[in-house]
């Protein structure tokens, strides 16, 4: 292949470095970032660039795949391999890539529309197949790129461009959806808590199998403040429940409140008098029944005014699709020997004409 190379500048030798020596800025592409000023996507990008040097994967082995949406512009801004595919299909593209290139670290960036509306099915099937892909679902409860229609996560009665009289759809709860699809890793974080987000991104990376991380993201143009009660200092301690493996469920202005499980029924208790920390629900990522209660308790017990959980809700293990696929290839090759093309083409019954 002859290439007419128009750029004749001196070639910079590719310096072989491990990411440990790289800096966040080494992961920034030359493309100008084009989100609205103030958009929550900026913070997510920043946290991503911050953790990437530390995840122990060579830059060349990292791939970001997205669909369409404001969120899906993400890959353009990272100097890794990337594909900005079509609406809703990033999960499918990533599945094919991972199935053939298991050694790559593959991230899917999607939105509440991209990943749960048009792309909901591929998402569900990715989760059940447990292909080792890290899914970041930027949930801003709105269609940003198309200028403000409600999405499958928009609150009931949302007034948006397409619902001037209020939306009538009952929203998905993304974590519950992932649960129902037999996901093995389900977590939540938010754009405005950089530390927590970084930690969640790392855990998302670490999990072997499909990791589903919902990230609350403020769209300051079309749905400003949708998550302010969780992200802003004044209310955050009251409204958020940050769960950690092996730790009791504690929240409240002075970490004075806890959640107890009475049978299958959660309840908020004051820590100190009647209940000590030991009486509280101790978070166990590996317990799917509890994870399900955690995920759904707010919507199922609206009267209790429960806080919204953040953190890793579920982390269980199941063989990944791509490993099983490789295993079958190896087993078959061991059993039948490496395929002989001539024998294959000839098949079982041949005859010769002289």
């Amino acid at each position, binding site marked *: 292949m002859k*290439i007419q190379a128009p750029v004749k500048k001196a070639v910079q030798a590719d310096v072989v470095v491990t990411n440990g020596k790289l800096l966040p800025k080494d992961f920034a592409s030359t493309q100008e970032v084009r989100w609205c000023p103030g958009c929550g996507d900026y913070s997510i990008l920043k946290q991503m660039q911050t953790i990437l040097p530390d995840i122990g994967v060579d830059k060349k082995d990292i791939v*970001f795949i997205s669909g369409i949406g404001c969120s899906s512009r993400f890959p353009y801004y990272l100097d890794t391999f990337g594909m900005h595919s079509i609406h809703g299909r990033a999960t499918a593209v990533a599945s094919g890539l991972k199935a*053939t290139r298991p050694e*790559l670290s593959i991230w899917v960036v999607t939105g509440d529309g991209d990943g749960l509306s048009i792309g909901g099915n591929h998402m569900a099937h990715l989760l059940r197949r447990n292909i080792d892909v890290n899914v970041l679902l930027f949930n801003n409860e709105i269609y940003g790129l198309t200028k403000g229609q409600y999405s499958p996560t928009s609150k009931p009665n949302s007034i948006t461009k397409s619902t001037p009289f209020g939306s009538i759809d009952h929203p998905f709860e993304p974590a519950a959806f992932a649960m129902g699809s037999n996901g093995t890793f389900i977590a939540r974080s938010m754009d405005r808590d950089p530390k927590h987000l970084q930690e969640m991104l790392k855990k998302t990376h670490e999990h072997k199998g499909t990791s589903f991380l919902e990230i609350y993201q403020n769209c300051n143009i079309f749905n400003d403040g949708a998550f302010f009660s969780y992200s802003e200092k004044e209310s955050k301690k009251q409204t958020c429940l940050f769960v950690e493996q092996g730790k009791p469920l504690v929240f409240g202005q002075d970490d004075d409140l806890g959640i107890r499980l009475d049978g299958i029924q959660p309840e908020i208790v004051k820590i100190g008098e009647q209940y000590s920390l030991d009486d509280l629900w101790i978070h166990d990522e590996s317990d799917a029944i509890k994870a399900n209660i955690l995920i759904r308790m707010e919507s199922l017990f609206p009267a209790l005014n429960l806080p919204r959980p953040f953190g890793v809700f579920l982390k269980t293990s199941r063989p990944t699709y791509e490993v099983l696929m490789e295993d079958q290839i190896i087993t078959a090759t061991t059993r039948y020997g490496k395929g002989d093309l001539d024998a294959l*083409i000839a*098949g079982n019954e041949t005859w*010769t004409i002289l």
Partner: protein
Amino acid sequence: MNKVLEEKQSVVIKFAGDSGDGMQLVGTQFTNNTALIGNDLGTFPDFPAEIRAPQGTIPGVSGFQIHFGSTEIYTPGDNCDVLVAMNAAALKTNLANTKRGGILILNTAGFDMKNLKLSGYDQNPLDDPTLDESYSVYRIDITKLAREAIGDLELGMRDKDRSKNMFVLGFIYWLYSRSPENTLQYIERAFKSKEIIREANLRVLKAGYNYGDTIEAFTSRYTVKPAKMPAGTYRSITGNPALALGLIAAAQKSNLKLFYGTYPITPASDVLHELAKYKNFGVRTFQAEDEIAGICTAIGAAFGGNLGVTGTSGPGLALKTEAMGLAVMLELPLVILDIQRAGPSTGLPTKTEQSDLLQAVYGRNGECPMPVIAAYTPSSCFEVAYEAVKIAVEHMTPVLVLSDGYIANGAEPWRFPKAADLPTIQSEIVKSKENEEKFMSYLRDENLVRRWAVPGTQGLEHRIGGLEKEDISGNVSYDPDNHEKMVKIREAKVEKIADFLPLQAIDSGKESGKILVLGWGSTYGSIKSAVTELIEEGYDVSHAHLTYIKPFPKNLGEVLDRFEHVLIPEINNGQLIKLIRDRYLIDAKGYNKIKGTPITKNELKQAVLELYPK
């Protein structure tokens, strides 16, 4: 063995019965046997849309037609010399296509009151003496004879009756003076662990064979000499496995891992079934949740430096169109198989048609050019799949392969190639930058082909996507002039492939003359037969067959110009003809049959003669 042995040049046999009667197996076994003795052949299996359509009814009839001979055979034959009908419905459906004077072998057990009613006969045709006036009719209670042969075996009646197809096969082997050896071996293999069933099949096969010897009814036996086919080693092949083999061969020759992302659909599923067997060839099959995921996983695999392939039929192709557009924009190699069936919509899923051509060429949003090539016989599926990979990889483009239900399931002898003799495929995955500061992902070579840079390659990190790309850099660009330029480049790149393709040749007949019959796809055999006969009859007719539909061969215009008339037969309402008329402004005429079945030789001869200048 005191029967007359009559030699035949070519014979058409149709096996027809209920979908539960095992006629497809009989057909396949007889086909293999025929191939092994060196006849040329063509087959046409024809089955109902339902898994088990209601027993005894017309829609429940399953048929297998085979045409074999000592001369070259191009089609499964227009009309049968021999019809085996396992029940009344099978006779009713097929009698019209049986030659006057032909042989009817009728299973009398399939003509009871129930069968007669279900097939809509008022009177039992077995009792109709006029039948014997036109045909040599053999009334045999196959069911009973089969049962008798295995009366002592510990098998339920249903299982016993299942073996009756072997009686038919044995008998036909006898009739055509064949050794049943390959089928005996097949039975041994297939029922290795089911002793009683194996025994039953073996016995019934032999009973059928012996029946011929013992009864008096048949006065002749037949023999068909091996065909004078080019020297070489042959096997029998149907279209879908040939596609699978072509893909595997191309993957090996190009040193790429084959990934097949697909969703089952008739008549394409067999490509998946076939490929799934070859894990020791490193083939990865991915049964996706739908057709969209099928193609998108293949695109993902292609981005990763693999041979990404997806396959489907019409309704599935419709679903893949958006992603096909993405592949065009990404300029990644990708092969899309469309095994056409009769549409529109769900249509007639088990019937054949050539009606996805315009969808293949034009059915995408925006200006979205993509090479389209068409297989034309079962064995050509191998070459065409191979060629598709070659184009895709060497020109960095998705390529669409059209086949159809007829060649997908039809069989023919195939003088298969040696792996070493297959054309080379230049697949280059770029390993490092040229003299460029940043990797320029849409820099092109002299054939307008960009480089294939894949994740895992240091220094080549880059992003691609469905938004318009800037020329050379591959960055997103909203520049108006750049857009026009890129639209033209994408078109030019596909057209440039014609520089690497063979010129259009004349298949039969003279290089110029009165009528050119221009075909594409599965009509090949019928056109070939019809034109060959017409030439023999003294008509000035030629045949050219298009494999490359986008881009057209460079000389196609000249070829067309050398003829007074151009006739384009298609199993659709006229699709290639639209492309030809638009491009070459010639008043080509169409011959169109849209019945879910192949065009026959005689229909075609008729059509040519109607156009023939008086």
